[in-house]
C-alpha cells in the first residue's frame, strides 16, 4: 500500500511537471507576442536559455540550497548535483524556471543577451532557492505557518519583483515616454501568439496548482485536486471578466491584451490559496486580481514610469502578493472571513514583505553589478534596429514586410 501510494503520487507529480514545463512555451509566446517583431527571436532565445541554464544550475546547486537540511531557518545545507528521487528535482526545476522566466518579459527589447544569461544564472542559483527554502524547504516562514500552496509568493511575486528591479535599472525603451513624461503605447506584434501563450499558461496551471498537492493516492488528495482545478479555473475566469470590465469602463473599449493579463493575474492570485479557499472565495480572489492588475499595470507604467512591456510586474508581483495575503482572508481554516482572526493574515503579510525585501535587495545588487561590469543594456542603435538583427544576426519574420 505504501508502494502504491508512492507510485500514484509520483506519476501525478510527473504529469504535473510536464504541464508546468509547458508553461515555458506559454511565457515565450506571451512575451514575444506582446513585444515588437524586431525583437521576437531575442525574447524567444532568452526564454529558452533561462530555462536551460536554470535547469542545470538548479540541479547542480539550487535544489540543495532550497531543500537541504535547514540551517537556521535561512537556507538548506548545500549539496551539489542532486541525486535521490528525481521526481522532486524535476518538479522543483520547472517551478524555479517559471520564476526565472517572468523577468525576461519586463526587460524585453533592450536587455543585452549575455547579461540576461548572467542574471538567469544567479536567480536559479541563489535568489529563488533561498527564499524558496524559507517557504517550502522548512525555513523560517514555513515554521511560522506561512501558506503559499503553489507559489504566489515563492514563484510569482519573486519573479515579478525581480522583473520590477530589472526594468527599473534598465530604464524604459526608447520612445516609451515623451519628453514631458507621457507614456506612449508600443503595441506588441502578435496578439494571437500572446493569446495562445495565455491559453497554454492556463492549461499548464492545472499542473502548477494541481501538482502542488504532491500526492494523488488518497480520497482526500483526489477531492483536493478536483477542488484545486475548480478554484484555479474560476479565479482565472473571474479575473478575465473583471479586467475586461475595468478596461471597458476606463478606456471605453474592452482591451484585449489587458484582459489576457487579467486571466493570468487571476491564476497568479489563486496560486497561494487554491487548496484552502472555497470556489466562492476563489471567484472573489479572481475578481480582485482582475481589477487590481489593470490599476497595477497603469501605476507601474504611469506613476513609477517603469517600462514593463508585458505587464509582468502587475501580473506576477502585485497579484502574487495580493493572492498570498488573501489566503489570510479567505482560507476556510484560519482566514479572517471564516472567524480565524488575524493571525494567519499577519503571517501571510509578513511572508510577502520578507520575500519582497529579499528579492528587491538581491536582484538590485545583481542587476547593478551586471550593469556596472558587462553592462545591462544594448546600445541605442542596437535597440533601434532590433535585437534580432544586432544580437543574433537574423530576422524573425524574414518573409514579411515589416512596418517601421
Amino acid at each position, binding site marked *: 500500500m505504501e508502494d502504491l501510494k508512492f507510485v500514484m503520487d509520483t506519476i501525478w507529480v510527473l504529469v504535473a511537471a510536464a504541464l508546468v514545463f509547458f508553461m515555458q512555451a506559454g511565457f515565450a509566446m506571451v512575451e514575444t507576442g506582446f513585444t515588437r517583431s524586431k525583437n521576437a527571436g531575442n525574447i524567444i532565445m532568452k526564454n529558452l536559455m533561462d530555462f536551460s541554464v536554470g535547469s542545470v544550475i538548479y540541479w547542480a546547486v539550487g535544489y540543495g540550497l532550497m531543500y537541504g537540511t535547514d540551517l537556521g531557518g535561512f537556507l538548506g545545507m548545500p549539496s551539489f548535483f542532486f541525486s535521490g528521487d528525481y521526481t522532486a528535482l524535476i518538479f522543483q526545476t520547472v517551478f524555479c524556471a517559471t520564476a526565472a522566466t517572468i523577468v525576461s518579459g519586463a526587460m524585453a527589447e533592450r536587455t543585452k543577451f549575455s547579461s540576461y544569461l548572467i542574471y538567469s544564472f544567479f536567480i536559479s542559483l541563489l535568489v529563488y532557492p533561498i527564499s524558496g527554502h524559507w517557504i517550502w524547504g522548512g525555513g523560517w516562514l514555513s515554521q511560522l505557518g506561512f501558506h503559499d500552496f503553489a507559489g504566489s509568493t515563492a514563484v510569482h511575486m519573486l519573479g515579478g519583483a525581480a522583473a520590477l528591479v530589472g526594468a527599473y535599472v534598465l530604464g524604459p525603451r526608447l520612445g516609451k515616454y515623451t519628453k514631458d513624461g507621457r*507614456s506612449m*503605447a508600443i503595441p506588441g506584434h502578435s496578439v494571437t501568439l500572446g493569446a495562445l501563450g495565455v491559453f497554454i499558461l492556463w492549461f499548464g496551471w492545472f499542473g502548477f496548482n494541481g501538482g502542488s498537492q504532491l500526492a494523488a493516492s488518497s480520497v482526500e488528495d483526489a477531492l483536493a485536486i478536483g477542488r484545486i482545478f475548480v478554484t484555479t479555473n474560476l479565479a482565472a475566469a473571474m479575473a478575465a471578466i473583471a479586467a475586461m470590465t475595468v478596461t471597458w469602463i476606463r478606456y471605453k473599449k474592452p482591451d484585449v*491584451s*489587458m484582459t489576457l493579463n487579467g486571466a493570468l493575474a487571476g491564476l497568479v492570485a489563486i496560486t497561494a490559496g487554491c487548496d484552502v479557499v472555497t470556489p466562492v472565495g476563489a471567484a472573489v480572489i479572481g475578481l480582485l486580481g482582475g481589477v487590481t492588475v489593470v490599476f497595477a499595470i497603469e501605476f507601474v507604467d504611469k506613476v513609477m514610469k517603469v517600462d514593463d512591456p508585458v505587464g509582468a510586474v502587475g501580473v506576477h508581483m502585485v497579484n502574487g502578493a495580493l493572492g498570498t495575503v488573501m489566503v489570510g482572508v479567505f482560507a476556510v481554516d484560519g482566514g479572517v472571513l471564516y472567524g480565524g482572526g488575524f493571525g494567519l493574515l499577519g503571517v501571510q503579510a509578513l511572508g510577502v514583505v520578507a520575500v519582497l525585501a529579499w528579492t528587491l535587495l538581491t536582484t538590485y545588487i545583481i542587476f547593478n553589478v551586471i550593469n556596472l561590469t558587462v553592462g545591462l543594456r544594448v546600445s541605442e542603435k542596437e535597440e533601434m534596429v532590433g535585437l534580432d538583427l544586432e544580437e543574433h544576426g537574423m530576422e524573425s519574420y524574414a518573409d514579411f514586410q515589416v512596418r517601421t
Partner: protein
Amino acid sequence: MDKMTKIDIITRPEKAEDLKEALNQIGITGMTFSHVLGCGLQKGKSEYYRGSQYKIDLLPKIKIEVVVCEVPVDLVVSTATQVLRTGEVGDGKIFVYATQDVVKVRTGEQGVKAL
C-alpha cells in the same frame, strides 16, 4: 511620340477592386497597386492600448499607378472620381505627372506601343 501620362490614385483600400474593374472597362490593361499609409484631412484615431495613448494617425490607403497614352487622362480621372467618391473625407486624391518614356521589357517596344 504621343504624350504619355502617369496617374497616381490614392484612395481607400476597400475600393481597389471596383476601381480596377472600372479602369479595365475603359481600356486600361496595366496598373500597379501598392499599400501605403496616408495622412490627410481624414484624421486617424486615438485609442488606449493597455492604458497608454495609442495614436493611429496613418491610415491604410491604396495607391494605384497607371501610365496611359491612348486612353485620355480626363477619362481616367472622371472614371476614378466616380467610382471612388463617397463624399466623406478620405476619398483620396489623384495626381497626374508627365511621363517621358515607357519600355516593355518582354518585347523592347517603346512609347505608346509598350502600353
